[in-house]
């Protein structure tokens, strides 16, 4: 028999630091052992879950397709549909099965439209899946709320509007983003009215998503964007500018010209780009007159506008900038000059004393 007492006595004779080191080592050893076992369990479960997912996915897909394609007139089919609903109902209290049903429904929703989509929505109600989504809106965790809103958006549940609108200024940007997507997905341009009062910033990420959603609709009749162009929230103004460009809001030119004196440089640059797109010839003289007060980025944008809207009377202004120290401006000036007065452009080539100019002249000259 091993004399454990001898070992314990021997250990206790060590200084405190050594005892501590061995004790921590012991703890580490136990942790390594437990984590190794746990790792095995996790890997086993992940593999199992993956296999189960494939099996259940096929099963649910078959069930849901059967439900959707059942002949509603026939009594037999109706009974079958009821059986499918009650089967799904019995599965969805288990979280991962509910997730799977939802994922199959999402996939189906992406593939169908019209009556089929309506049938999926009915199924969503009848199985009670909607109740789970509505409960998510009351959860204290932001990501659960966001998931709930996202789900209600996908199934186009308009009745939740009253609950969801409360999250429009939520402290978490993900919840706000989902709320905004919900509103625009369900209520199209009317859903954008939240912009009237929005105090939180609308990220560029959200803006792109909203624009993508809007462009998918058949009815492209845009609402009045004037209040948003005048918004105190800069991100709303930037979003409205994107709308003005995409939806060719020619009637907004006056407000756009006013916005050329906005405090934010980013907005001013964006306005010049939108005016370029909208052939905002009215802004040209104003910008020309204030050219030296503009930032270099605004000056470049303005030359972009001139490239599109140039007329022969702009020649003296262009000529003044063909040796501009900024590469982009010089290049644009030369390109524009070549367009409006080729003879003058060719003549300038010989006069140039600027080191870089001959290369640039040659380059512009070669552009067809």
């Amino acid at each position, binding site marked *: 028999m091993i004399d454990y007492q001898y070992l314990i006595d021997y250990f206790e004779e*060590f200084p405190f*630091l*050594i005892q501590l*080191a*061995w004790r*921590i*080592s012991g703890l*580490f*050893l136990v*942790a*390594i052992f437990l*984590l*190794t076992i*746990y*790792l*095995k369990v*996790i*890997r086993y479960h*992940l*593999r199992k879950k*993956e296999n189960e997912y494939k099996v259940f996915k096929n099963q649910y897909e078959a069930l849901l397709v059967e439900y959707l394609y059942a002949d509603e007139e026939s009594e037999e089919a109706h009974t079958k549909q009821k059986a499918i609903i009650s089967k799904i109902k019995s599965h969805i209290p288990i979280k991962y099965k509910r997730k799977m049903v939802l994922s199959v429904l999402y996939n189906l929703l992406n593939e169908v439209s019209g009556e089929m989509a309506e049938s999926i929505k009915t199924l969503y109600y009848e199985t009670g899946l909607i109740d789970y989504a509505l409960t998510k809106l009351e959860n204290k965790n932001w*990501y659960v709320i*966001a*998931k709930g809103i*996202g789900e209600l958006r996908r199934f186009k549940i308009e009745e939740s509007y009253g609950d969801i609108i409360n999250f429009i200024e939520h402290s978490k*940007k*993900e919840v706000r983003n*989902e709320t905004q997507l919900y509103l625009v997905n369900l209520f199209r341009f009317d859903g954008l009215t939240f912009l009237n009062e929005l105090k939180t*910033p609308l*990220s*560029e*990420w959200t803006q*792109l*998503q909203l*624009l*993508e*959603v809007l462009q998918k609709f058949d009815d492209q009749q845009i609402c009045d964007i004037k209040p948003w162009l005048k918004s105190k929230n800069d*991100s709303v103004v930037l979003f409205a500018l*994107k709308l003005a460009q*995409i939806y060719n809001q020619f009637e907004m030119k006056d407000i756009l010209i006013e916005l050329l004196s906005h405090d934010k440089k980013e907005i001013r640059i964006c306005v010049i780009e939108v005016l370029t797109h909208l052939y905002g010839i009215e802004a040209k003289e104003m910008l020309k007159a204030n050219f030296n007060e503009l930032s270099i980025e605004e000056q470049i944008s303005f030359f972009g506008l001139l490239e599109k809207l140039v007329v022969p009377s702009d020649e003296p202004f262009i000529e003044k900038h063909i040796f501009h120290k900024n*590469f*982009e401006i010089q*290049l644009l000036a030369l390109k524009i000059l070549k367009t409006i007065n080729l003879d003058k452009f060719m003549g300038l080539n010989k006069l140039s004393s600027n080191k870089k100019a001959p*290369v*640039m002249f040659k*380059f512009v000259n*070669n*552009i067809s």
Partner: protein
Amino acid sequence: MDTSTVKIIIQIIHYLFFAYAFSAILSYIILAIISGKETMEYLKRNSFVNYKDILSSTMSPSITIIAPAYNESLNVVENVRSLLSNHYVNYSVIIVNDGSKDDSLEKLIEAYDLEKVDYIINEKLKTKPLRSGVFKSKNPAFEKLMVVDKENGGKADALNMGLNISTSKYVACIDVDCLLIENALQKMIKPFLEVTDAKVIATGGVIRIANSCVIRGGKLIDVNLPKNLLVRSQILEYLRAFLLGRMAWSRLNGLLVISGAFGVFDKKIAIDVGGYDTNTVGEDMEIIVRMRRYMEEQGRKYKVSYIPDPLCWTEAPDNYKIFISQRNRWTRGTIETLRKHRKIAFNPKYGSFGLLSYPYWLIFERLAPIVETVGILYFAVLVILKEVRWEYALSFLVLAYLFSVLFSIVSLYSEELTFHQYKKKGTGYKLVLLSALEPFVLHPFILYAAVRGNIDYYFNKNKKWGEMKRKGFTSNTA
């Protein structure tokens, strides 16, 4: 000096070593906890994000992938194909052939039907001049591709050429031999578009090791664990560094390095700070430190972001010679960057950058190999003098070893709960076993390379990049 003074000095040295080791371990634990929290938060945030909208949006910001290539003839055609197969809608690819001596350019011209085009470069950053010029494809299928052939100036110079040529708002700087996952760009661009309370200046991605993985047509088909012990050990090392380290620094907004293999930058800021430094071998770390310094000095709120998804796969060195050469370069890069920006160290003017990130890198990255080497030498002296108190030595060695194994296993655990890339049966055991072996098969060589890096930095100033021979993904294809 009498014996008691010597004893006191020795005692102080012991305490210093102890304090260093203790604080290093403590910092690893703290960083791992923060990383865990941040990763969970990241996964929650992204569990309901729809990347498809950004994918198809023509309003999405433009990104240019800049990939420098030097003597990559063996794989350049395949690698470019991979870069061209990204799903992001608004992007272009610039391959900068950095004075290759092989037939890389000819192969690209032939494979992509390239023709020389007139091009004028806005030389915002000084670079070596063009050699054969700028090429674009006659085939509309490759309209996103541009090949620039220039005189050799090194990776940083090639990247600067790419920055000069790019017309996009954002640039993704990448090693040409890296394999990007199809949705890599939209994941990397997200922080730039999403953050509204600060300017995101750069986003770093995780680098995963592709040796032994199955790759077809520029796409990752199957993830395998390599047989080579050195490569396998690097997998573990990368998991630890990326999953348990960088994620925490991202949370603390203290990332000082974005891997040169894959990072996305705000082009304007990158150019405003002067682009990549051509006089360092650690240009990837240096540009981040310089961009941060620039933002701090301007008093602007900024962020360096980090995406933990496995988006970029690369080939790791599979022999010790190349491995040591690579780590030697990393060490020299770190020393050069920290020395160049030493003004930041412990400087409250730079906030947490000067008081936390920089000191951490200085103490636990820059000085670690030196402290470890001094410790080993000191231990050897004690052994010779028969002054070793073995009961202490043994207990601390065992403790350090077990901590290292435990830390590796925690990183495996973190990987399984998040991205679960090594799915095959039996891989888990192999990785756990590797956690026990790695301190012997990898760490000594990392230390050796770091010491060599220090010596080369101080005594062999002419040493530059070193060799990195690629076998290429095609040879891994099953």
